[in-house]
């Protein structure tokens, strides 16, 4: 995507000069980013630099100390409760450890947002859940409990739960962390296929270069509380910027 193309496109998520600190620890310090509707943007960075913190601002789990985060034109600092609920229903969030409720079966975990926030009949909910489980390639796990699933399967169920309300935006928090390379690769391809099939906007937090290569249209490096070197994955990987080379060095190996 050229710079001109980007300028023409509709911004769905915008961070403007966002600052966030937890006590004395400054995490975001002038964070700026625009994510366009339908694109997949990856935020890379070393552990502990605030990637997940940045992501949590989008869904209203955190509010900035200063600066503005808007999602589809809604200011997340001042958004009203009902509007936030409606906005969240249009977003899916894939947690690092899947965050499945361990006392519900995999299928009931996926069904939960529908059971709690809609009045759909049971049969329709079950049909939707089975469709999403099939979409993420774990069609036979409805009745399995989370502790009976492997790490990769839990991630897929978490992804199915994020998809079950047919969101326009999906937020991925380290979607391949803790998985072996083979399963990571399959999750990356699944994310890419879903983005293409469902035309969703994806904001991905990761420190895996393989995830960026496979899934992202654009990528930036979060370091020192700010986003640097925003570009497409190829330019990003082949950049000669010393900080980027230092960060990517062992990952490219």
């Amino acid at each position, binding site marked *: 995507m050229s710079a001109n193309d980007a300028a023409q496109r509709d911004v769905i998520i915008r961070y403007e000069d966002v600052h966030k600190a937890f006590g004395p620890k400054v995490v975001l310090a002038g964070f700026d980013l625009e994510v366009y509707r339908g694109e997949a943007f990856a935020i890379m960075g070393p552990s502990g630099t605030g990637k997940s913190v940045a992501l949590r601002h989008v869904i209203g789990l955190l509010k900035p100390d200063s600066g503005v985060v808007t999602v589809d034109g809604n200011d997340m600092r001042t958004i009203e409760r009902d509007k936030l*609920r409606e906005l*969240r229903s249009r977003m899916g969030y894939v*947690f690092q450890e899947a*965050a*499945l*409720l361990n006392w519900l079966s995999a299928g009931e975990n996926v069904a*939960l*947002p529908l059971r709690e*926030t809609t009045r759909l009949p049971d049969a329709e909910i079950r049909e939707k859940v089975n469709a999403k489980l099939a979409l993420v390639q774990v069609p036979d796990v409805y009745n399995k409990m989370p502790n009976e699933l492997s790490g990769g399967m839990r991630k897929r169920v978490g992804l199915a739960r994020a998809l079950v309300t047919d969101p326009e935006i999906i937020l991925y928090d380290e979607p391949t962390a803790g998985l072996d390379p083979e399963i990571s690769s399959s999750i990356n391809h699944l994310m890419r296929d879903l983005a293409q099939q469902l035309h969703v906007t994806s904001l991905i937090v990761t420190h895996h270069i393989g995830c960026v290569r496979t899934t992202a249209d654009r990528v930036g490096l979060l370091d020192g509380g700010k986003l640097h070197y925003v570009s497409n994955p190829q330019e990003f990987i082949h950049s000669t910027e010393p900080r980027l080379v230092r960060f990517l060095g062992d990952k490219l190996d």
Partner: protein
Amino acid sequence: MSSMLSRFLGDVGFQLTLAVQVVLRAGSSWRRRTLVADQLFQSGLKVVHVVLLVGLFIGMIVALQTGLELSRFGQQDQIGTIVALSMCREMGPFITATILAATVGSALAAELGTMAVSEELAALEVMSIDRISFLVMPRVLAAAIVCPMLTVLCDAIGIVGGGLIAQSQLNVGMSLYYDSVLESLNDRGLPFDLPKDVYTGLFKSFVFGIVLSVISCAAGVQATSGAMGVGNATRKAVRDSIIAIIVSNYFLSWMFFNT
């Protein structure tokens, strides 16, 4: 000192806010009946044997300690009155609530604490699921129901335990013992057609059930920092619940029996 005070006030404020939120969501209890029933099983049936065992021995201890003193004055036939009033007014509600705080309260804090640190609570929030209605209200309602029910069992088994001691150690016949038990519980107070000593004890239990479950849930949902945070939340839940039960017990006793 001032930071301790502000932390204490912050905790109490959070617990009171949580209690109010639970009350405001009580209307959804029918919709949550499956979750409530599950919690009734978890917090009720699983500790019945503990309550029965402890209640039995508490009744025996009360009978033994007071009976020996009474027998010095030839008043051992009053043992039924003392055991019945002790169990129904104080020991039954207090012992039951303490057992629940140590077993159910710690489990609630650990369960919700684990959910907090493993981002399950955050997941509920991003799915716009009301965590109070979905997680806290069913647990508080179950504890409020279970605590008086278990107290009835504790009272009854304690009185039976006292009777065993009265007969075997104090030479008080069973019929005399139970006559004095029934006579002592004959003070029927308004507004219920129940012995005042029984219903005030049950009311206390109801309050203790709410107190211990709200405090435990509050500790759980505030847990941070992984396994250590869950451990801290559990310890805090049991400690604060027992303190709150004792303090509220004093005020409830004062309210009912101060003449």
